[in-house]
């Protein structure tokens, strides 16, 4: 089973929860927040493999170029443009569609590449962990997340995906293909607002979802009628306690502070399987 842990709002406890779930069940863990990956900070894995991931960008041989402008015409991302006597490529705008390579009548555009990021694979406390690190200055996280999922996810056993925050394409790339999505939120107006967006985004993928309320006990009852109205099952509540925040700050896991959560996790998993 593939379980995605997501949330619209950042800082609701996705990583804390994903790490605790992986520890409780010895599950495989994929940290898909390639912009700011954090799961490895808690697990401190011994890394076995490091891999570079490149993406294709056009490379133009100007000596053969007639500056006809076909490449500029096909590119919808304004990533390549021709001026009299020169061709400019903007790698950060390029989506790698190969359109320019395909249309060039002189065949003078070839595959070039830029470093998109790195993938890391390792093991800690019996947990297999994989994470990606997007190169600083690279805008597009989705292709790296895709590469990470392709390399790491298998068919068997429990696999947990720690997703990036938000509701944009990177989140959907991370959640897509999961059997279930745990949406982590907090009982605040921000938490509710962003949960609404995240639930809508996950629904477009057809992935069933349930909610975990972190920092429960904050006095914001408006959250709960929303869950009922949307048919989102409330699977677990984690109390708002300063010790948890302090342990997190030190890089300690949730289970170290609340070992009793393990049995709640087991119930949660049973409920999801149903």
């Amino acid at each position, binding site marked *: 089973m593939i379980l995605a842990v997501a949330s619209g709002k*950042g800082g609701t406890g996705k990583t804390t929860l994903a790490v605790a779930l992986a520890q409780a069940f010895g599950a495989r863990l994929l940290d898909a927040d390639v912009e700011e990956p954090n799961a490895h900070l808690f697990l401190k894995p011994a890394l076995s493999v490091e891999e570079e991931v490149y993406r294709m960008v056009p490379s133009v041989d100007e000596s053969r170029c007639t500056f006809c402008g076909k490449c500029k015409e096909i590119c919808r991302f304004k990533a390549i443009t021709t001026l009299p006597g020169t061709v400019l490529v903007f790698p950060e705008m390029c989506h790698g*569609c190969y359109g320019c390579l395909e249309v060039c009548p002189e065949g003078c555009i070839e595959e070039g590449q830029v470093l998109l990021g790195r993938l890391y694979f390792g093991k800690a406390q019996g947990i297999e962990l994989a994470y990606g690190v997007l190169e*600083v200055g690279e805008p597009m996280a989705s292709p790296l997340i895709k590469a990470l999922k392709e390399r790491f996810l298998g068919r068997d056993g429990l696999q947990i995906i720690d997703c990036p925050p938000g*509701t*944009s394409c990177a989140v959907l790339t991370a959640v897509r293909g999961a059997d279930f999505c745990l949406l982590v939120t907090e009982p*605040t107006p921000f938490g509710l607002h962003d949960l609404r967006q995240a639930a809508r985004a996950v629904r477009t993928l057809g992935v069933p979802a349930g909610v975990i309320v972190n920092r429960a006990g904050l006095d914001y009852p408006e959250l709960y009628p929303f869950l009922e109205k949307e048919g989102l099952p409330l699977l677990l509540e984690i109390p708002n306690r300063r010790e948890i925040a302090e342990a997190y700050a030190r890089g300690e896991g949730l289970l170290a502070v609340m070992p009793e959560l393990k049995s709640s996790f087991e119930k949660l998993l049973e409920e999801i399987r149903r």
Partner: protein
Amino acid sequence: MKEILFLSGKGGTGKTTICAALASLWEKPKVIADVDVDASNLPLLLSPRLLSQSPFQAGWEPVRDEGKCTGCGTCREKCRFGAIGEDLTIDPFDCEGCGVCAWFCPEEAIVMKEKEVGKIFLSETPYGPLVHAELYPGEENSGKLVVEVKRRARLLAEEQGLDFILIDGSPGIGCPVIASLSGVSVCILVAEPTLSGLHDLKRLAALLRHFKIPGYLIINKADLAPEMSSELLNSAEREGLSFLGSIPYDPEVFECLRLGQPLPLVSKGPASKALLEINGHVYKNIVGGGEQ
């Protein structure tokens, strides 16, 4: 014109709460913008009154005229994103909207249609005009929406002769964050004293260096982990960030969220006091022209 952008790398560190507090404390007239388009929370603290809204279009989607299609499969062959299946159905999640399928279709059966990906709002608030937006869930092109929100905020500032734009940014260091950095005068980074906070701050500082934008640091919930706070400070110094101040953990912050008001308006607690002091430093160091 000065553009001041709040960023954090890690989500949920308090960017929006702090941005709203400073917006309420600033007496200088300014435009406020929220560019966290997939979790736009700043309006929830600023009591906005909506003045206008408009749809935002960005990117394209292929639409096939099945009457013209002969099923030759050229579109599938040319698509590098695996978005066209064996039965030639187009998967909107994999499609990047590049239009290569449409270009090479021998029957011209595919046209590229512009896509509506979100909405942009203009509101007025007691603290100044607010430009904000909503990206439809799961859409791409958050970067383009960010650029458009910023463009409108700038236009508004020019029209009204305002010298400052206060911008609440997104978490991460990818597409929407990079888009939000163009034209920014300074960034105020909000970090929390945690292992993740430290790690994410370093990556964000590297991004600012990459784009040569000066950065300032605020440490939120500093007393939760005093040792980690001093590590953050050391790291900030090494990364070339100037320090603006710390805010202690204060349960009254939750009250401000619940009431939907900027913190200084509803609390005289320790976090609110710290923000007053930070506002003074912002005036002295960033706004220019001495203390308020």
